[in-house]
């Protein structure tokens, strides 16, 4: 007899099977989130899970929580309205790199600057996967995608550095190979008050792997990412040139600042 995973109770009834490709990292990261949520006893009645558009954005569709879905890049504006009106709700965003770094880039900077109280899990699969594998702001240089047939000539974004510079108060990056570190980072992010971002570099066998790496094998995709990953402790010893082709992993920052309550707040002294 098949045993049902105890995490299954966090999924919306009737929402399976999910639509992720075999070997997709987004499905794995949904699992990471559920484990993290389970380990800290997250209250799903007070959870609002938000996705924009894309593969990662589908994760909230499967969660048995309040959910918003279907508009590309506007996850943080939604969150801003929700959190200002009801700060007691827990908002978790599942964003792809396109959602976070491309179309939603300005919202990302502004929400980090404001220290909006939100957990943002960015699944960085290094390309626009749902639309067929186009180049993204996170794609490494020289890689072949459907819109960079002669190799990517753009510089990639370092989302973690961007978040730190903009004012985020919890920033972490891991990959799907280091699952326990990723789960722990998500747990910390969920317990953090303020703008918490966890970026997880993730394999996309079908649309990234086949084109950029020449293989649709998920395990080879995971391996390729892990081979290019270096912890922040070791990264300091590497020359900048070499670092630009690496994924620096670690918990970069964790600090406490007042969270955003609105642009105009009237507070009587002594209250």
């Amino acid at each position: 007899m098949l045993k049902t995973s105890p995490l299954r109770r966090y999924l919306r009834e009737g929402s399976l099977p999910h639509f992720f490709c075999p070997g997709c990292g987004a499905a794995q990261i949904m699992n990471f989130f559920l484990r993290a949520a389970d380990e800290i006893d997250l209250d799903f009645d007070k959870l609002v899970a938000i996705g924009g558009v894309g593969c990662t954005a589908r994760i909230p569709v499967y969660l048995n929580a309040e959910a918003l879905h279907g508009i590309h890049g506007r996850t943080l504006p939604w969150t801003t309205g929700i959190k200002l009106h009801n700060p007691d709700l827990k908002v978790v965003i599942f964003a792809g790199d396109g959602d976070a770094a491309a179309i939603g880039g300005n919202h990302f900077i502004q929400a980090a600057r404001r220290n909006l109280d939100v957990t943002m899990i960015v699944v960085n699969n290094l390309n626009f996967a749902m639309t067929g594998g186009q180049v993204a702001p996170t794609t490494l240089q020289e890689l072949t995608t459907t819109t960079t047939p002669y190799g990517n000539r753009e510089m990639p974004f370092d989302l973690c550095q961007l978040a730190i510079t903009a004012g985020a108060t919890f920033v972490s990056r891991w990959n799907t190979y280091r699952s326990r570190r990723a789960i722990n980072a998500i747990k910390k992010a969920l317990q953090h008050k303020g703008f918490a971002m966890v970026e997880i570099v993730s394999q996309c066998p079908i649309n990234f792997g086949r084109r950029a790496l020449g293989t649709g094998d998920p395990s080879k995709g995971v391996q390729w990412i892990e081979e290019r990953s270096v912890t922040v402790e070791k990264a300091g010893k590497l020359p900048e040139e070499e670092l630009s082709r690496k994924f620096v992993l670690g918990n970069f920052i964790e600090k406490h600042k007042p969270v955003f309550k609105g642009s105009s707040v009237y507070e009587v002294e002594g209250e």
Partner: protein
Amino acid sequence: MTDNFGRVLTGTHFMLGNHAVVEGALAAGCNFFAGYPITPANEISEHMAARMPLVGGKFLQSEDELCSIFSVTGASLAGAKAMTATASAGFNYMQEGIGYAVAAEIPCVIVDVQRCRGENYATQADVMQMRWGASGDYETIVLAPLSVQELFDHTIKAFNLAEKYRIPVIVMSETTIALMREKLVIPEPEAMEIINRKKPDVPPEEFLPFKAGPDGVPPLPDFGEGYRILHSLNPHDERGSIHWDPDVFDSMYKRIIGKTNHHRDEIIETEAFFLDEAEIVLIAYGSECRPALDAVQHARAKGIKAGLLRLITVWPVPEKEIRAVAEQASAILAVEMNIGKYAGEIERVSAGLCKVVRVIKNQGLIHTSNELCAAIERMVS
């Protein structure tokens, strides 16, 4: 005068149009506002920034109009009565959010203080964008006030309609009235009708979030009340599950559009001036009704049987009222401050019944009553 800390400033005021919008919103129970700076809508944001925190609401100066409209939809789902305001160029950016609010059925109010492209002069050029500016199918409700008093009244009405039908409602403001100061009378709170959204009357396990009763409007719980609803732009069934099926899609939008179309008689408001035996009828909306009414009165004084049909609700089209005029009059003058846009709707509705003449002005200026008087006189000479 009531003190400035009250939500409803009952009394008689001499007020700026943009400020009247804010007071109307607060009287309606608005407790979330987001806006991005843009002329000539700035006084709405500035007044909100001062007033909203005093009455327990939230004010956001957004990073762009996309953030305005999406924070408004987010706040609304969290239980807020939410509004944003902008001017034409900013209204462009909001179309994505309006489309989402239509599909996910999120009550909210949008004020568009129309301005000429690139300049702040008067216009009614956004009238078509207000109807179908977003991608996908929908019918919307657009109200066209003509005075500072009506900016107050119609903002309340917009909230009531948004809450009643779970749709975005647009208040079509104009530079003319937004930046005008006039008398405004704010009634006692008890004297104003305030409608709030329907809430579920069954527990979460029995609740189908997108199943509606005969009125087509499903009840809407707030986030965090335990209902765990998926609010997606994607086609969804009554449970809210994303579901592609031609029939599901068709019935979903039939119901959503039906909320407006099946309640036209309750939604549509017009005002008739001198329509008895009128042979030449001006049809106008918004601030253009002011010179139009003047012109009709002048014409009547000269013995010309002129009248005015004022469209308070611009969308959905008051077809019944326009058709009645077309059946009676020998000519309709379609008065507008743009290149002639709504005139197409008037021509459609009165096709074969009477002649429609477009009286348009696209110079960043409202018609003068003399200009409209001359237009009437040309019809009888």
